[in-house]
């Protein structure tokens, strides 16, 4: 009898809502942020390698410096984005399904640093591979199929 009463009240008299929400509005997570930064690192690395290291004119030096600055900034951004995903989004329960999760993020963060220290196409491409792997894991945990793509 009480169930019927409460059900009728629930239907008729509106209430305030309480949020049992998942990711909003505290954090909207998406590995795409890291992917875009990683792509910029790869692009800058390629452009630097394409420049003539023997050219010492002002214009080339200026271009080279800008490429370095952007690569440095974007590598740090990629690292920040990855660390946010790692520490804020992923939870202990995800480790059960993805036991190499910590290693994957640790390696990806290390690659961000490596792309700053070096002008290495290999490192930049390895970073993109790591980000793609994280993309796959991330969307699997969400139960969604999201195609990986790159802007370049």
């Amino acid at each position: 009898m009480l169930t019927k009463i409460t059900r009728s009240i629930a239907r008729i008299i509106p209430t305030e809502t309480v949020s049992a929400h998942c990711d909003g509005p505290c954090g909207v997570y998406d590995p795409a942020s890291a992917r875009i930064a990683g792509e910029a690192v790869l692009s800058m690395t390629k452009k630097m390698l394409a420049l003539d290291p023997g050219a010492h004119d002002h214009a080339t030096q200026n271009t080279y410096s800008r490429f370095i600055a952007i690569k440095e900034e974007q590598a740090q951004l990629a690292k920040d984005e990855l660390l946010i995903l790692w520490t804020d989004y992923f939870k202990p329960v995800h480790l059960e399904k993805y036991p190499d999760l910590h290693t994957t993020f640790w390696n990806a963060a290390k690659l961000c640093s490596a792309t700053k220290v070096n002008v290495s196409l290999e490192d930049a491409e390895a970073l993109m591979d790591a980000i793609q792997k994280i993309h796959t894991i991330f969307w699997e945990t969400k139960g969604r199929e999201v195609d990986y793509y790159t802007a370049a």
Partner: protein
Amino acid sequence: MENVSRIPHDLSNTGWPEFILWLLNRRIRFTVKGSSMFPILKPGDQVLIDPSAFRRRSPNVGEIVVALHPGGEALKIIKRVAKVHPDGQLDLQGENLFETTDYRAVEPGKILGKVTSIFSAHED
């Protein structure tokens, strides 16, 4: 953080004593939105909270509470107390660990009350 999913839940349907307390304005009714408290609470379920539950004591680990959102107080959230820090601050966590966002170190003053019962389960 303590794994709250191992804590057995004791959230029962609203009985007559709770119903009378609600009629006397001693309980507040809320509708749950979102699924971070699944399977205990589904979206659309209505719950009662006791706003005076923590006037004389601190929340305990395992209790389900309604709190003001730490980032934006216009929003009220429903979560389980996962940890009580020595300084009284609370870590809140959803039930559905795949669908939840943790709230770390929420001030006790942000807790609006303890969820006491399920007033009405959402009809599918």
